[in-house]
């Protein structure tokens, strides 16, 4: 079994699916849907196999495959997973089928739609498993292209502008990142993440940059900072970090529901993943240098986006801002990790708490936020496209199960203990409090504001006298329940028994924190 290239196969399944579907006639809708779902279920199975075969007693990269690709460019085909990658692969395999099911009713160019979806999934799998920049970057960009077309072709009324803004904005970040990596490659001649991380933490990278790239009299450290800024921009846009977030509300609001689910659940995680896999290990010193301003940016991301969410009147935009807020907690955790702790035992324990929290938060947000958008999608289907905060009222009367299940997702999102959202946030705050007390204390405000706007949604949409316009609103149908109930069960499971995830990631976390000591 150890020789079976599980990860490659996993990445190829959706790729093959995409190719198969793109050849289908546009009228074979049902076949396209069925095939897409089939491919998805197979990759879910693959991800579950990966989960089972992952040895949680080993902190090392597992199931690695390494082949030369273009040796002269330092390009290798090198994949493998540790706890972080594993968690993200599993999340991808869970969320994409849910998102596809939520887009079941798309009627235009169905095979193309699902083909793009599968391509996107392949890009995500590749991003979360690749360990060589060259290879990784291809997948990183590969996921962007189908996302662009999905918004552009199937989105809402202002989809064209949204898609262009999304694409260009993300592309600017990607280009900056590419240039930075080219500079690095020029200086040290490798694209391998692991090697680069070792050079980064030992300071060799800065030295090599200074030797090879003497550029307007910058010292090695300054040069490294410039290069760092390029990579940083790429990830900061993707997550996003305020002030690089303006593409997000528009894109989320205009994208079709299924795509919004993938955008918020998975593509935003690519950014956080990048921070953890690339930025933090390769540029720990640079990150440490500007940690304080970054922390304040994270606090701003948390608080300002939560407040902005309260001011929204469009549910999708509101949850888009909420999504920025939740990822802000991840960023707070990531930035806190950069703090120098050396061999201070207790502080390193706090770091493991933060990193565990960040990973959990990625998974939990990746689960909860798509489900919330899924519910908004259901609501839109019933209301003929209306999704304003004040367009409804009293829906609980006609759709109690809808309200109950969406209520659970909302409470998971606001961090109610017993549901999944709480535990990640608790661990992030628990660790970051001693590491960055004031930033944490201010960030906690985000928890309060989140509660305010989420409860406002419950109040305006579901409570009060029934809006007569919706007196015939349909209750959640059985297929719809089939989509959301497993996810809800997962939320409960993680909330009550987080060890089920943490058992797999903890050793990776310890190892990553170990690397950050210097």
């Amino acid at each position, binding site marked *: 079994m150890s020789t079976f290239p599980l990860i490659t196969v996993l990445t190829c399944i959706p790729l093959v699916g995409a190719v198969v579907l793109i050849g289908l006639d546009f009228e074979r809708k049902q076949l396209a849907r069925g095939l897409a779902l089939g491919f998805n279920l197979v990759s879910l199975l693959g991800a579950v196999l990966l989960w089972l075969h992952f040895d949680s007693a080993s902190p090392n990269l597992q199931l690695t495959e390494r082949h030369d690709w273009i040796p002269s460019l330092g390009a290798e085909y090198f994949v493998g997973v540790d706890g972080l990658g594993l968690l993200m692969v599993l999340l991808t395999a869970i969320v994409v089928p849910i998102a596809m099911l939520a887009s079941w009713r798309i009627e235009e160019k169905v095979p193309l739609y699902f083909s793009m979806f599968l391509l996107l999934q392949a890009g995500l799998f590749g991003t979360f498993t690749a360990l060589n920049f060259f290879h990784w970057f291809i997948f990183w960009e590969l996921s962007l292209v189908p996302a662009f077309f999905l918004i552009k072709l199937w989105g809402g009324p202002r989809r064209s502008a949204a898609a262009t803004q999304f694409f260009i904005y993300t592309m600017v970040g990607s280009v900056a990142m590419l240039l930075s990596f080219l500079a690095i490659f020029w200086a040290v001649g490798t694209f391998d993440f692991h090697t680069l991380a070792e050079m980064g933490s030992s300071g060799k990278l800065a030295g090599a940059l200074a030797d090879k790239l003497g550029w307007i009299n910058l010292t090695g450290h300054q040069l490294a900072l410039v290069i760092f800024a390029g990579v940083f921009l790429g990830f900061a846009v993707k997550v996003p970090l305020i002030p690089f977030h303006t593409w997000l509300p528009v894109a989320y609001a205009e994208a079709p529901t299924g795509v919004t689910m993938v955008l918020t659940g998975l593509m935003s995680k690519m950014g956080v993943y990048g921070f953890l896999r690339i930025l933090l290990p390769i540029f720990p010193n640079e990150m440490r240098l500007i940690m304080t301003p970054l922390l304040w940016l994270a606090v701003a991301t948390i608080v300002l986006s939560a407040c*902005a969410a309260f001011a929204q009147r469009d549910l999708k935009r509101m949850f888009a801002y909420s999504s920025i807020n939740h990822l802000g907690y991840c960023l707070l955790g990531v930035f806190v990790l950069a703090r120098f702790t050396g061999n201070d035992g207790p502080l390193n324990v706090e770091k493991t*708490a933060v990193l565990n929290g960040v990973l959990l938060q990625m998974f939990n947000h990746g689960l909860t936020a798509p489900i919330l958008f899924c519910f908004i999608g259901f609501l839109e289907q019933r209301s003929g496209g209306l999704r304003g905060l004040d367009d409804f009222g009293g829906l609980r009367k006609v759709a109690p199960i809808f309200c109950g299940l969406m209520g659970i997702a909302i409470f998971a999102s606001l961090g109610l203990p017993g549901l999944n959202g709480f535990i990640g946030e608790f661990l992030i705050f628990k660790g970051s409090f001693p590491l960055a007390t004031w930033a944490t204390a201010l960030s906690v405000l985000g928890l309060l504001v989140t509660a305010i706007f989420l409860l406002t949604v419950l109040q305006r949409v579901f409570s009060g006298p029934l809006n007569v316009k919706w007196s015939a609103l349909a209750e959640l149908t059985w297929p719809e329940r089939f989509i959301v109930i497993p996810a809800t069960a997962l939320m409960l499971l993680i909330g009550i028994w987080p060890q089920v995830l943490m058992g797999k990631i903890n050793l990776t976390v310890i190892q990553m924190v170990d690397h950050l000591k210097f």
Partner: protein
Amino acid sequence: MTFQVQYLFLIPLLPLIAAAMIAVTRQPHKRFAATMGIGAMVISLTLSCAAFAKTLHRSSSAANFHEVHNFNWFTFGETTLQLGWVLDPLTAIMLVMVTFVSLLIFIYSIGYMAHDENFTRFFCFLSLFAAAMLGLIIANNLLLLFMCWELVGLASYLLIGFWYQKPSAAAAAKKAFITTRIGDVVFFLGILWLYSQSGTLLFYADGKGCLENLQQAEWAARTTIGGMAITTGIGLLIFCGAIGKSGQVPLHVWLPDAMEGPTPVSALIHAATMVAAGVFLVARVYPLMSANGGEVAGWGPGIHISALTVVTWVGAITAVFAACIAVAQTDIKRILAYSTVSQLGFMMMGLGVGGVAVGMFHLIAHAFFKALLFLGAGSVIHGCHEEQDIRRMGGLKKFMPVTFATYAIGMMALSGVPILFSGFWSKDAILHAAHDWPVSKIPFYLGVSGALLTAFYMTRQMCYVFFGNNRADSHHATKPHESPRVMTLPLTILAVFAVMLGFIGTPAWPWFQSYLNGGQPLFNFAELWQGEVRSILLLSTVIVAVGIGLGWWFYGRKPITSPDAEDVLERLRPDIYELFRNKFYIDELYEATVIRFFVWWAQLCDSMDYWVWNGAVLAVSYLILALAWVNRLIDEYAVNLGFDEGCKGVAEGGKLFSRLQNGRVQSYLRVIGVALTVLILVLIWGCRPS
């Protein structure tokens, strides 16, 4: 470890299972839902009694008796987060109280909610609440306590908003959740701080818990901002959670609005149990609260300030503040709600000045008589066809005799009528401790005024509701009627306890105090006649007499005839009455400041998003467009123009030369001739000898 401790987790788990099972039950199965809920509570009550019996049989020498069971929840890094449960006298007495009161209220709800279409959902939420509350009580970890704390908040949210079609109920539910969450967020920070300092959140863990051996703990001796001890800082943050949950000033605003929920909910959650959770929390982390905060300049020598000092002040202020408001309210449930706020203030004050036993004694006694009063109010509302305004009641004494009798007992217990009623003894203990408080005498005077006001407003309410003539609108065809047995039975049982409970904590036989603190209670009647005890007892008696007397003089002497009649106080001092009736305008103040600021701030964030951040991005994109445009201009005019001109020149030249090639032989010959001539001339010129 004994089986009582081993299986302590079943006490919250059973109601939780019941809640889950009811949740998937269809609406019509009312009997099933009620059976499940009540059955679970009966078993929990039995188990609680077993646990209580266990704490009774401890050796009396163990002052700090507790048995714990801890287990691993999850591992991060190389550390493990442990949760667990604890059995100690504090837990045991709360368990018995909560399960017992819950059981009675569950039974009462069968009658009260009988005709509600969402009967099963009501029992589901009630059971969920009971589970969370019981979990909160047995938690041996501050995090677990916080989790249950949030879950009781959820249950409270769901139950306040139970009649969700009413916009006021939906708004009240939201207000309750958010107001308490303000406190909870600060509480959460306190938890984080405590965790980072002590390295554990377990209360008791064989000497390593965060409440054990605080005197020896290195971290507890450190100080923080302004020379305050870290323990005091953490204690104050944790207390903020209690302020929110227990409706202390300034976060009391949610509790009166919470009366939008069904009356059994008001009785169970917003009077007897959940709101007391804040008091319980302070009692639970008492070592942290009472840890020495150092001498603060200006308070005099020998007076040590701890977090408890703040607890005392907040409690004392709340006690009077809320009692004032209660004087001028006209909604039967709101009067009781403000009374609850005021009594919670008394409990806080008791904890602050007298210790765990004093505060907890009032908590337990209050739970019974306030549940009784609320259920009585529910019975009244039920009997008067959902009328809640006391001005439209009156004369119910003869229509509802059982309700009247039990309500009167509750009222006397709350007012603190001497000797017979529990409220007298518990309030007396608080006043006594406040009198001995070394820091300041003001809380004592505040407490005395609070007690006076309590007796006054309760008498006012009694007069309005039960005496005089019935002032109901004539459109009600039927007269007020007594409630069914299923509702009056719990009233009777609670009334018995409202009387009896007082005797377990009198100065003559302080059983309750020694149960919580350790030691043997001595039966000694002479205690009652000792100097200070006697004078405080006498003072209490006088206060109650004055309060009730004044109330009777104002409202009972002449029967109130019309619902629109002016209140006596309104006639005497309209300005003060207005101030009280409008709750000191606190809601309006918050509306005008905090809420308006928040809305403005949110709008600002949104506009900033649009104008500043998005503007910056647009500016960059326009800059790039402008660059592109400049580029185009350069292309067209500098580069292209030069190139085009050059090309044009070449073309013109070509044209010029092409004229030579016109195909006519004669012109070619002409050119050749001219050229030949020129050539010859040049050659001649060139060969000229120089």
